[in-house]
């Protein structure tokens, strides 16, 4: 599905080159559920952002469903991203000024879905996540777990092939975290969504089909279950 070849990412900080990703090569197939692990500062989030095209690598080649991403213009990249990728954040990142319903609806607006279609899709999603009763509340009125459910619902609304999750359970208690992980497993198994998550928790990582360990910007180890 996607392939990174010799990808590096560094920042110029003062006179020093601050290397975050160091010559990473990675192949990910459709239907995989991957957990990226590693200590703080090992480059997990940056790797996820590069995969998700939110960040550009300084060097290397990046292919995504047959497109050479490193050669695309920003607009083409955005279009590709819109079509295939959903993102879930540790801090949920819902838009505070929008209700639950509107937050979930927004990606559809950017993808030019018609009003009636949007309504049906959002209703379906609210139903599936059992948050119909919360649809008119604002993010500040929800618990963390509920906010993250909305965040995932929003990421899935446009039916992405690839779901990227940056410590999705980091701000949640263990019970809420488990529920989210069960949901991910279900999505992966039943809907065939490819999932890549960054996590600190060994337990959560084991929901995946492959664990990639990063250390100092390099792939330290990779194991499949």
């Amino acid at each position, binding site marked *: 599905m996607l392939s990174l070849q010799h990808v590096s990412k560094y920042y110029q900080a003062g006179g020093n080159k601050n290397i975050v990703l160091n010559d990473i090569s990675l192949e990910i197939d459709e239907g995989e559920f991957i957990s990226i692990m590693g200590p703080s500062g090992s480059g997990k989030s940056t790797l996820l952002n590069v995969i998700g095209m939110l*960040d550009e690598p300084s060097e290397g080649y990046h292919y995504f469903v047959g497109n050479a991403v490193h050669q695309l213009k920003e607009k083409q990249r955005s279009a590709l991203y819109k079509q295939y990728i959903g993102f879930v954040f540790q801090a949920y990142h819902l838009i505070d*000024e929008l209700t639950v319903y509107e937050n979930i609806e927004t990606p559809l*607006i950017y993808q030019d879905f018609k009003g009636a279609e949007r309504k049906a899709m959002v209703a379906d999603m609210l139903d599936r996540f059992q948050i119909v009763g919360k649809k008119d509340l604002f993010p500040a009125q929800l618990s963390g777990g509920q906010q993250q459910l909305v965040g995932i619902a929003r990421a899935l609304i446009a039916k992405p092939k690839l779901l990227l999750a940056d410590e999705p359970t980091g701000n949640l208690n263990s019970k809420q975290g488990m529920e989210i992980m069960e949901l991910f497993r279900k999505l992966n198994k039943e809907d065939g969504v490819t999932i890549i998550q960054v996590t600190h928790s060994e337990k959560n990582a084991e929901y995946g089909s492959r664990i990639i360990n990063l250390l100092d910007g390099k792939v330290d180890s990779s194991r499949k279950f």
Partner: protein
Amino acid sequence: MIKNYLKIAWRNIWKNKVFSAINIIGLSVGMAACIVIMLFVSYEKSFDNFHTKNIYRLNEVQTIGAEGATQKVALSMFPMGATLKQEFPEIKNFTRIRWSEKYQLTQDSKRIFLPEAFFVDSTFLKIFDFKVIRGDRQTALLRPHTALLTEETAKKLFGDVDPIGKRITHYGDDTVTFAVTGIIANVPKNSQLQFDALFSFSSIYKPWMFTNWGGNWLNTYFELAPGTNAAVLDKKFPAYLKRHLKGDSWKFYKLFVLPLKDVHANSADIGLDYINYQKFDKKSTNLFAIIALIVLVIACVNFINLSTARSAERAKEVGIRKSIGAYRFQLAIQFLGETVLISLIALLFAIVLVELALPYINNLSEREISFNIFSSFSVIITVLSGTILIGLISGIYPAIYLSSFQAAKVLKGSVQVGKNKGSLRNILVVTQFTSAIFLMIATVFVLKQLKYMQKQDPGYNRDQIVNVPLDGITTKKYDLFKSELSGSTLISGVTASQDILGSHLDQTGVTFKPANGPKQQLGTTLLVVDTNYLSLYKIKLAAGKNFSGDKMPDGRQYIVNEALAIELLKDHPKYPVSSVLGAQFGFDSLGTIVGVAKNFNFNSLQYKIEPMFMVRAQHWGFRNVSVKINGNNTTAAIGFIKSKWDSIYPEYPFEYQFLDDHFNEVYKADNQVSQIVGILAGLAIFISCLGLFGLASHSAERRVKEIGVRKVLGASVQNITVLLSANFLKLVLIANIIAWPVAWFAMHHWLQGFAYHISIQWWIFIIAGVVSILIAFFTVSFQSIKAAVANPVKSLRSE
């Protein structure tokens, strides 16, 4: 998509009430100022636009005195109209206008004064498009003794009776009877020509008029053939004057034509312009427009500043929206939508403000400006598109800036957005305050100059003087009126003259013959006065004596002012002014110069004191009685004057005006301009301070944690206040330093236009500086102190 944008725009406006309020208040005030000035400008532009012909007014440039000084006047000579039409094919038609104020008319037993009567040639209604309701515009004025009345005048004279064919009579120097041949719609307010009735000029023809070259007592208007080049026509006039004027006198005149549409607003340099209603210099109108625009720009700058300052708050949203698939341009459009929405909301408030301000502005400008946004489609389109444009202009930079944030960076919180835009904000704040301070200084100078002109000692005393107008009839009983008044203790003196000081006085040609030299011809200003005129007005003599009852062997007595004495003695610059005493002076038969008066300002102080002379000539008739009231009991004195007037002139209504009020009218246009500029300057400062308030509160908000830490470390309230205020005050200080020299230069230039003007005092700049810094300080410190006294525990705990 639009609905979603609007929704979030509205929620953002609602959530950030302080910032929205600052933007909306600032924008609505700026827009209201612009709309009001726009209405004023379009009202000014509408003057005389209902005429469709290619109309021009004939004007003269007169050379006065030997020094070759020239003055432009609106007046022309009686024979000019007809001869010019005859000799120049490009002049298709002409009409002359001779006006008469307070023209007395009787109809049966009814007696009224027409405020303004016009005697016009029969072509008047062919050239001008005044609306004729009844009668035939082609023939109504063709015969002598015909009259067209305005609806209002007809109503006054005839009530509901049909006036056509009825007779009206004027009594005065002459008795003239007119037959009413038509009714004209009331003259629109935006017409330079304001009249209550038109009479055929032929009704008052006298044989002498047809050869009266040199007498300037009417206005002449032409209809020129289409495509006529006015400048080329002007060049042909000298030859024409040479053909008609006697001797060398053609050299002292030049003629030029001015498009009728320019007469209202573009004739500030033309004097003796008596039938030019609400004449108002285009330069002032343009000045208003420029300042109003500056006020609006200051409001837009507020928006840019507050938006970029608050970019950190919006950064997260930008990041999220990009991470769920928004293109950059979609975000930019969203932000632009918000500014457009804010400016549309501001428009609603602006419309209310305009409605509230218009009565005041109409009162100040004495115009009838109205605002109805639904009056025409073009008004709606102009106002709406203007509003949207304002939204786009103020929103474009913040939109580009905000939408440029990279999702990965802002969501990680690794970049400090908005910080590096500080220098741009600083520049904009400095620009805002520079304009505001400049306007403030300019207002102070304009006001001081006007006050100076009104309070300056003019060289005569005008306290407690009441002027009572006379006409051809009432002047005949002047002696009786004077002696009746002089008996009372309420009155300390009575005198009379042909003109009132502070108006343009008439000009005349005179002859001067020194004891041992040839005759000289010159043109100068004339004031016909009563014997005691100088003593009542306390005009001092530099040499010689006052008018006396003595019969001079060789005719009349003259008193010249020092300026004229110096001009008469120009060949002998070392002679004292008293050398002119005893010399022969006057018109056809020469009299004697008996005195030299000290210079006094018989005009607005905008002009320097010109040469003039006074002559005692009661039999020429006075047009004005000056009564000096004794003490302060003005009410009783006015009552007394009225009772005497009513007993002597029972058929004539009593009118009066204090000389001080007359001078207020002389300076009225200046006062109007200064007041409007002052209001706009106030608004500029107000809106600048609103912006500063917004920036200060935002900065206090963002630094709440820093303030908490500093307080825990022992900083006092003063320390914190200074910390938060210093940067803003520094900007205002810089603005002052920029504004001062600019204002100095501009004011220096402006004051040169006045013959008598104040000097530029440095302390005005200092005061403007102190005031601006104080205002800014109060604005900023409100927020700073609020932040400084807040409990640090709260701000730190919330982290």
